[in-house]
């Protein structure tokens, strides 16, 4: 019972924040709402017992990605005080596309018979913390993807620095 | 003061923006406005806007009798008022040909050196605030209070002393002056060591100041920079040594110089100067003769027509008084050449290319007093 209430609360917050993020006229507000939506998602992760993922979500997504986004918004100072519509002329096609995709997925979910697949798995009430499992998996079965991702991150870091660093000659 | 924007906004490139520092800003030490053109945190251009507290002292003095101008010189630089009194008194005495008795000269030297210490202590504490250290101000003010008490005992004023009269002093030193001076000299050098350990030698501060705001000797002289700011640039020009006035030849002290002319050298010069001042005070205390404190001065000050320029080494640099007399009891034209005026003008030269925090650090190291710039 209490879990259901919490689920609906968090889901509501997430969707509400996501809607506001998409519709907000001010890009900075959008970023703040994005942070809220991500926080809601993190809470949902925590509800599912994936505390580690929730922590990573907050640490990386909010603490790094959103902060970076806000940082860039601050740097492109043109936006301050601007209150023009942030939405282009594609509203109607966008609504149709998004509704269609949502309906499709929901229909597929409802049509699928999950019962048999869940049956042999652990019931939800027994969901335990799986941080240890993740850690073991990352360093055994998934060690190569793990390393590849770290290389990717390094490459992205260097690439970002290279892109943003100023052209010394162009300056002069 | 200017109403025109000094660099047009259209000239800004995309990454640059204008930041108004002042007129009310915690680290401009008064009402000074600095318009910065910044790229991120780096200063690209800078414009000093002064004159917010201009009170036209020179015009005021043209309408006052000679003896009435003395309290106004206090208010030019309220931190080393005695030196400014001295500059003015010296000018009128030279114009009138008055010789000051030796005891009065000794008292003048003592007051001036105490005043220099007082000013440097305030500079030290304010500099601590400028660079974010909040404790130095308390320690420095403890000693400063002792100095002020001594000067107050002699002159009656704590900040605007109005100490000098033409020809000497009205009152002799109070009885307990020598005792408190002795006590002060006794422990002050240890205190300076503490100050240096607390702030000047701190690695954070040295990292912030060494190599920052380098003022070369040529630039400094070209911009008319004087005082400790000039001596920081390895230029041993101290008016007490190079153009001695009063009885400064009698004392054994050295003009403190820095090596590279960066911000840290200017700080160090001021700290050393306090030690030298203590030395002078010690010699003056031992050598002070008995005798008159006031020369024979006519009741009405009416100098012969002519003009005079005298300069003294104030805590900030060369303070000069230029008087044109037309034979009446009021000066025809009086001009105060104030050290901070020239010292501030060099700020642009040495700040461009450094960070916002450096602007504060460099400006603090120049030791500005705004009323003296605006006059």
């Amino acid at each position, binding site marked *: 019972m209490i879990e259901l209430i919490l689920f609906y609360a968090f889901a509501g917050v997430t969707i509400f924040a996501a809607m506001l993020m998409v519709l907000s006229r001010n890009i900075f507000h959008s970023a703040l709402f994005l942070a809220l939506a991500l926080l809601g998602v993190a809470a949902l992760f925590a509800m599912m017992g994936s505390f580690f993922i929730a922590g990573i979500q907050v640490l990386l997504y909010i603490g790094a990605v959103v902060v970076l986004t806000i940082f860039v918004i601050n740097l492109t100072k043109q936006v301050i005080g601007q209150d023009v519509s942030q939405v282009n002329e594609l509203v109607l096609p966008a609504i149709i596309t998004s509704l269609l995709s949502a309906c499709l997925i929901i229909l597929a979910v409802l049509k699928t018979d999950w019962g048999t697949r869940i049956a042999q798995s652990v019931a939800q009430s027994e969901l335990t913390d799986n941080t240890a499992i993740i850690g073991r998996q990352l360093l055994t079965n998934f060690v190569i993807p793990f390393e590849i991702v770290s290389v990717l991150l390094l490459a992205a870091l260097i690439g970002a620095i290279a892109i943003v660093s100023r052209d010394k000659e162009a300056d002069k | *003061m*200017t*109403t*025109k924007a*000094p660099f047009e906004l259209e000239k800004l490139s995309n990454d640059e923006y204008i930041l108004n520092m002042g007129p009310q800003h915690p680290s401009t030490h008064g009402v000074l406005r600095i318009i910065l053109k910044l790229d991120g945190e780096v200063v690209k251009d800078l414009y000093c806007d*002064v*004159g917010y507290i*201009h009170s*036209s002292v*020179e*015009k005021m003095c*043209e*309408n*006052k*009798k000679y003896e009435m101008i003395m309290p106004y010189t206090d208010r030019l630089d309220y931190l080393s008022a005695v030196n400014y009194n001295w500059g003015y008194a010296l000018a009128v005495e*030279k*114009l009138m040909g008055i010789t000051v008795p030796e005891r009065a000269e000794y008292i003048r030297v003592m007051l001036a050196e105490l005043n220099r210490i007082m000013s440097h202590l305030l500079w030290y504490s304010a500099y601590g605030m400028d660079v974010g250290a909040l404790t130095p101000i308390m320690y420095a003010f403890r000693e400063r209070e002792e100095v002020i008490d001594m000067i107050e005992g002699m002159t009656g004023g704590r900040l605007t002393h109005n100490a000098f009269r033409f020809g000497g002093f009205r009152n002799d030193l109070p009885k307990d002056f020598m005792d408190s001076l002795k006590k002060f000299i006794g422990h002050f050098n240890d205190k300076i060591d503490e100050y240096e350990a607390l702030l000047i030698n701190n690695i954070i501060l040295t990292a912030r100041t060494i190599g920052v705001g380098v003022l070369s000797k040529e*630039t400094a*002289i*070209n*911009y*008319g920079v004087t005082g400790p700011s000039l001596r920081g640039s390895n230029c041993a*020009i101290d008016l007490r040594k*190079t*153009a001695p006035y009063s009885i400064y030849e009698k004392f054994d002290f050295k003009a403190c110089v820095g090596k590279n002319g960066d911000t840290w050298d200017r700080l160090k010069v001021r700290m050393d100067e306090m030690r030298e001042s203590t030395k002078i005070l010690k010699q003056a205390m031992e050598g002070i003769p008995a005798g008159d404190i006031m020369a024979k001065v006519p009741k009405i000050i009416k100098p012969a027509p*002519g*003009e*005079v*320029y005298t*300069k003294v080494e104030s805590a900030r640099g*060369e303070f*000069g008084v*230029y008087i*044109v007399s037309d034979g009446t009891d009021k000066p*025809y*034209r009086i*001009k105060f*050449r104030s050290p901070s*005026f*020239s010292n501030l*003008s*060099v700020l642009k*030269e040495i700040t461009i290319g450094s960070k916002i925090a450096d602007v504060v650090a460099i400006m603090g190291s120049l030791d500005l007093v705004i009323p003296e710039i*605006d*006059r």
Partner: protein
Amino acid sequence: MIFTEILDKLKAKHEVLESKEDLGVLNAWVSAKKIKEVIGFLKNDMQFGQLSFVTAVDLMAANNIEMVYRLFSYETKSDVVIKVKLDRAKPEIETITSIFSTADWHERETSEMFGVKFLNHPDPNRLLLPDGIDMPLRKDFKCADMTPLPKV
């Protein structure tokens, strides 16, 4: 260096309109057109490294504005004063900012205090005064706030 020496050296190179000794310091009057050369000569050839100040005196009786340039030499420890008489109605003089950078602010101050126009000045903005107050150091400046000393 005593004043006669300076005067001789100066006279050898440039025209000195008038000169006198005042409390041991040479005061030399030169013409307004020559000011830049004279100051440059004093700085480069006679080691007058410091420009103490630039100011002006309003000689209302003679209908003149007198520019005063005071230089000091750290090497020889001697002063020299260069003066220029300008027409009070239309005071104009060449700037010496290119020789002494410190002259920049001093000239701007003089400019607004006496209305002297400095030709070719790099930054002719006002320095100290707000708009609306002009030439306060001229002797005929009047202001409502100015009260004379009481006559008792």
